């Protein structure tokens, strides 16, 4: 009788253990469509020149952005350059996420995220360390992740130099990125926090939303390098300091104070609106 009771209890215990889902693992796999409820003009058609508003940029970043010429993107080296791992979340592309599962433990060992125009970004969950600081830097960087309850927290290092806004505002290769992935039903919210000792004076925080879309399929994106415009060999488009004629256009188009469009950490915070109200405007163009 006792033996029968014991066998029953054991079977129940085994079944219970088997049926319990792995601890704190949320499945992020699927096809995710970006939702442009925030910053659509910047994210889809693209930002205007001289718009550094809301960016905690340093003086070095302003210098780089002020001397940036969009024509540089016609160079062969630039034509097929993908968005970096930190920018791509905020970009205009659809997202596909899939996972790797350990065949024995059934634990998720990695997520992969790939957007149109991005590389395959891998987020390792197997506890591996980040490589030496001297290891190669890539567009996707080196990303590890850990569970924080239902939130996946990602750390990205080893990024090639990129940009935080597509108007020349740079992000250095010394930057690190922390991401928090949060799933609420069919919605995915990802918060990215960029720390850059060269071009940002404070952490740059953004959150971006995606919605599950089962009808979506990220298509292939073969990219060909061609001669987009004719120019002499060796010419690299650029603007010398103080010669960019378009820097004040953004302020003029939107009747904003020029000082505000230069960005800086102060311009990130809501109370800056009070200061804005007292500042002289550029005059509407």
């Amino acid at each position, binding site marked *: 009788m006792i033996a029968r009771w014991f066998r029953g209890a054991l079977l129940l215990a085994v079944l219970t253990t088997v049926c319990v889902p792995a601890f704190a693992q949320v499945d992020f796999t699927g096809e995710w*469509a*970006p*939702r*442009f409820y925030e910053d*659509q003009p910047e*994210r*889809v*058609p*693209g*930002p*205007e*020149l001289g718009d550094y508003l809301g960016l905690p940029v340093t003086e070095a970043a302003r210098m780089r952005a002020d001397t940036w*010429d*969009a*024509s540089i*993107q*016609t160079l062969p080296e630039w*034509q*097929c350059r993908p*968005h970096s791992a930190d920018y791509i979340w905020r*970009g*205009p*592309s*659809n997202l596909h996420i899939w996972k790797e599962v350990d065949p024995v433990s059934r634990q998720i060992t990695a997520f992969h995220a790939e957007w*149109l*125009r991005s590389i395959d970004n891998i987020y390792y969950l197997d506890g591996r360390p980040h490589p030496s600081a001297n290891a190669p830097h890539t567009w996707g960087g080196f990303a590890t992740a850990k569970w924080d309850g239902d939130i996946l927290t990602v750390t990205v290092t080893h990024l090639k130099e990129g940009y935080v806004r*597509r*108007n*020349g505002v740079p992000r250095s290769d010394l930057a690190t990125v922390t991401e928090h992935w949060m799933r609420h039903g069919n919605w995915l919210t990802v918060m990215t926090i960029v720390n850059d000792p060269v071009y940002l004076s404070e952490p740059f925080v953004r959150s971006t939303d995606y*919605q599950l*879309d089962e009808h*979506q399929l990220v*298509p292939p*994106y*073969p*990219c*060909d390098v*061609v001669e*987009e*415009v*004719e*120019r002499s060999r060796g010419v690299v*488009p650029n603007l010398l300091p103080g010669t960019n004629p*378009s820097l004040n256009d953004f302020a003029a188009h939107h009747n904003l104070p020029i000082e505000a469009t230069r960005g800086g950490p102060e311009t990130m915070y809501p109370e800056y609106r009070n200061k804005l109200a007292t500042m002289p405007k550029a005059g509407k163009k």
Partner: protein
Amino acid sequence: MKVRLILLIISATALMSGIQLYAHHSFAATYFEDKQQTIEGDLSQFLFRNPPSFVHVFGKDEKGQPVTWGVVWGDGGQLGRQGVTRQPLKPGAHVIMVGNPGRNPDDHRLRMLRLKRTSAGYTWGGRPGETFD
């Protein structure tokens, strides 16, 4: 009023529906979106590809000097879905194009808004859906 409402609905639907968007470079940072320029000349090549397609045209600059214009168009996939093919745009075709001029005058570049091949009446731009992101 009715037309505006329809355009508004189409724009909102495109914005919310998660269709493939191909923006990569910022148009505002690259072109004078508030200006238009017309060029005319003979098509030298149509680079129907990703990232954006380019049409090269032997034409003239503002001073009448011969130049090759590089006119940016949509990504191959996006234009393909609009029915654009290589067939009507072969080298030698005489074309008139209207676009936003590039900010760097040395590039002799335009962002395509409208295209007309003078023979056989092929046109692009101006009809609903004939735009690119």
